[in-house]
């Protein structure tokens, strides 16, 4: 990385890349990935149920067969 910094990267800012395995960061990122997807699905599920309920409540009532 230092070689790249001093030769190829004379173009601009020093790189902010810090390549490496950091167990804490790895686990944090993995848990965010899992919780993030779970969170989206849960919220989406609630919205879907709400829309189904809204559609049921606001749809015009079906005519009774006996009603002229």
């Amino acid at each position, binding site marked *: 990385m230092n070689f*790249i910094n001093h030769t*190829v*990267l004379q*173009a*601009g*800012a*020093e*790189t*902010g*890349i*810090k*390549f*490496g*395995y950091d167990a804490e*960061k*790895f686990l*944090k*990122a*993995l848990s*965010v*990935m899992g*919780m*993030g*997807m779970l*969170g*989206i*699905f*849960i*919220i*989406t599920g*609630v*919205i*879907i149920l*709400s*829309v*189904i309920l*809204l*559609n049921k409540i*606001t*749809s*015009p009532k079906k005519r009774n067969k006996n009603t002229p």
Partner: protein
Amino acid sequence: MEILYQNLLQITWQQVVMWVIGGILIFLAIKKEMEPTLLLPMGFGAILVNLPLSGAKETLSVLFDAGIANELFPLILFIGIGAMIDFTPLLTNPKLMIFGAAAQFGIFFTLFIASFFFDIKDAASIAIIGAADGPTSIFVANILGSKYLGAIMVAAYSYMALVPIVQPPIIKLCTTKKERCIKMHVQGNQVSKLTKILFPIVVTIIVGLVAPDAVALIGFLMFGNLIRECGVLNSLSETAQKVLANLVTIFLGITISLKMVAEEFLALDTLLILGLGLIAFVFDTFGGVMIAKIMNIFLPEGKKINPMIGAAGISAFPMSARVVNKLGLEEDNQNFLLMHSIGVNVSGQVASVIAGGLILNFFR
């Protein structure tokens, strides 16, 4: 005499590279018509800020502080976007929202990958490129204090414009011909006006309760939609869709270019961000398609879902929906998937905001 050429002596090759990059963005905007509303101002702005001792930086800084540092421009733009969106295809078949949710997989997967290269907040800011939504990307990256705003914006808008090129190979790789030929019937359910009015309010409350940092994003989006659907504010709706959206877009595009100064932009980081942005879009597509394939395992014949519509859950509206429809017609010229893919596409807009809000929840 010296005063005429002394500035020429200040030109650096890095600035010339940025002029070329600005030129490329302008070329893509005009000749290829790739997201011209943003790429053209960004391209021109890149040239403006990379002229030696450019006086434009001061003016753009004023605009930046006025509209981007405080997340104002993206939020106002969201009013316009909300006013443009018709959620009827989604309200007719709300289960399509599942694909919108699944198509945000690319964001979180990219966050995981990016965390190997950047600190976690920068990784999250880069991952939000996968939201395929400019205002959400700016909003989240700004709040997380990312210094890569310029690269993130260039990546986000470029890939949004490249959806017709990026998505089809991924879709074809993840599906079989038989799956691509699955026909889906259009549900003829009517959606009441009351549902269309209550939907933006209900969604804002649900999302806001779970992800309070997303209230501004979802709220402004749904406010725009409510103006559209209420039926009594047609002039405001039209203004939001056209004048307001265009006005903010002009300022947004050229102001973002302040972050395209050569010293900040020309770095290995930028290349890596562009690569990670592509990964985000690829895995968004993958996520949407795969959820449909998984659902098909449990669905009987005759009720199976064409997995291609999952790819439309990426928030690039309406391009992604059109790409899926086109692929469907290529396989079978009687297979019209547009109604379904549009429903999935608009759900992706909501899901991307939810994803942005959750990211802020985790890292703010």
